[in-house]
């Protein structure tokens, strides 16, 4: 990517290289939590928050500790460690402040730990050798893109619950089809940056 201005990074991460629809990362919560608009929004915001924290944490560790010492090969294990810690903290915060939200997110909250979208954004930042501001903007874009898609999906799926779908397509099959069409429509953003 030649243009690395902050706006270009944001638009690229949110729309053009959308994590769910273009990079196929984070599909587990995308299909798991998109049944209901409210939970989808909470999940999206949780992922956005973790992405921001993870980008910050991994940037600090990579730029200040790993890179100067030539320990780039350790980034996988270190990133997973950092992300797991952050998710633990987020989970603890939600559990102690909003137990209803905690129950609604259910298994998907611990799954953010191993959510490839979060790890993906950290790796992407490293790979593109973004500085701190660029990393944060890229995480913000990725998180907003994730939230946008999961909210659109949940809105559609809420409508699908009410519509007359042939029996073999009910539930996940039609959700996969919808995801495909969403992906195709997001292709329209290609070439903007």
């Amino acid at each position, binding site marked *: 990517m030649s243009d690395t201005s902050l706006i270009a990074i944001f638009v690229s991460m949110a729309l053009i290289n959308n994590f769910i629809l273009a990079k196929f990362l984070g599909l587990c919560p995308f299909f798991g939590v998109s049944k209901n608009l409210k939970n989808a929004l909470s999940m999206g915001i949780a992922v956005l928050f973790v992405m921001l924290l993870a980008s910050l944490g991994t940037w600090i*560790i990579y730029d200040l*500790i790993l890179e100067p010492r030539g320990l780039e090969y*350790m980034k996988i294990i*270190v990133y997973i460690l*950092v992300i*797991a*810690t952050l998710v633990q*903290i987020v989970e603890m*915060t939600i559990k102690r402040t909003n*137990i209803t939200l905690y129950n609604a997110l259910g298994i998907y909250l611990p799954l953010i730990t191993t959510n490839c979208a979060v790890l993906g954004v950290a790796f992407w930042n490293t790979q593109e050798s973004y500085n701190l501001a660029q990393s944060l903007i890229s995480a913000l874009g990725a998180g907003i893109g994730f939230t946008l898609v999961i909210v659109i999906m949940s809105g559609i799926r809420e409508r699908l619950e009410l519509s007359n779908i042939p029996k073999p397509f009910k539930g996940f099959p039609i959700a996969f089809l919808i995801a495909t069409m969403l992906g195709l429509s997001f292709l329209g953003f290609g070439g903007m940056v």
Partner: protein
Amino acid sequence: MFATISILTGIGAACGFLIFIMSKILPKEDETLAKTGVLAEILPGMNCGACGQPGCFAYAQQVAKDKEFILNTPCMTLLQDGEALKQLEEILDISLDTSGMAKIAVIHCYGNSENIFDYDGIRSCKAAAQIGAGYKKCPYGCLGLGDCAAVCLQDAITVDPETDITKVDPEKCIGCGLCIVECPHGLIELIPRDMPHYLGCSYTYKKKIPGREWCEMGCIHCRKCIKACETDAVTWDKDRNLPTFDMEKCTASPESIEACPNNVIIPISTTPPAVSECH
């Protein structure tokens, strides 16, 4: 080599320490949370929402906070399950008087009114009720398209496809009340489970002497049930123009059932009388 190992260990230790610090800073876990967990396991866990809470867990939270809550809004499903109820009483250290709490849904119509026209639209009572008052002669009757049957989590409501008569299976019904709002004619009511009978008609039109010309099964407003009842449990509801049964006074005496010339008073837990047997 040593530096690498110590850096990785250091990062790990720092992460662990961060979690420790955060767990100290954050507000303590709600004390009732452990109790909520135990309660949530006893509760049915099907999240029917009939208690008015967003789910069984939220209900358990309310009960864990204030055990009186269960007296005011009992979990209808739990009331059917004696063993779970006993466990609940032990945990909460209260004794529940379940008599009169258990409810059952009844449909105040036997729906034998003839069709005025063939309805070919959406297979939903709510849609059908938008056209006039439905496609049946009686505008108060059950339309038999099964909106209530569709929401019933217990499969307790069935629609007889031949006669369009909707029945509640008293053995399956748990009295959760989800079906009540589904009926566009408001025919479904929750009554105490130990009520011996209910009225199978909701005809509230005052002017004509109703009944036979619209529906063979209708209440003909003869008021014989009131005279027959020894305990004064049956009274005449002037607003609705129908007899009502006092839930507290009513005993299982069969006088009013027998007195009804049109078999509109229907005993619970028996099969509905066949329509051809109408007097």
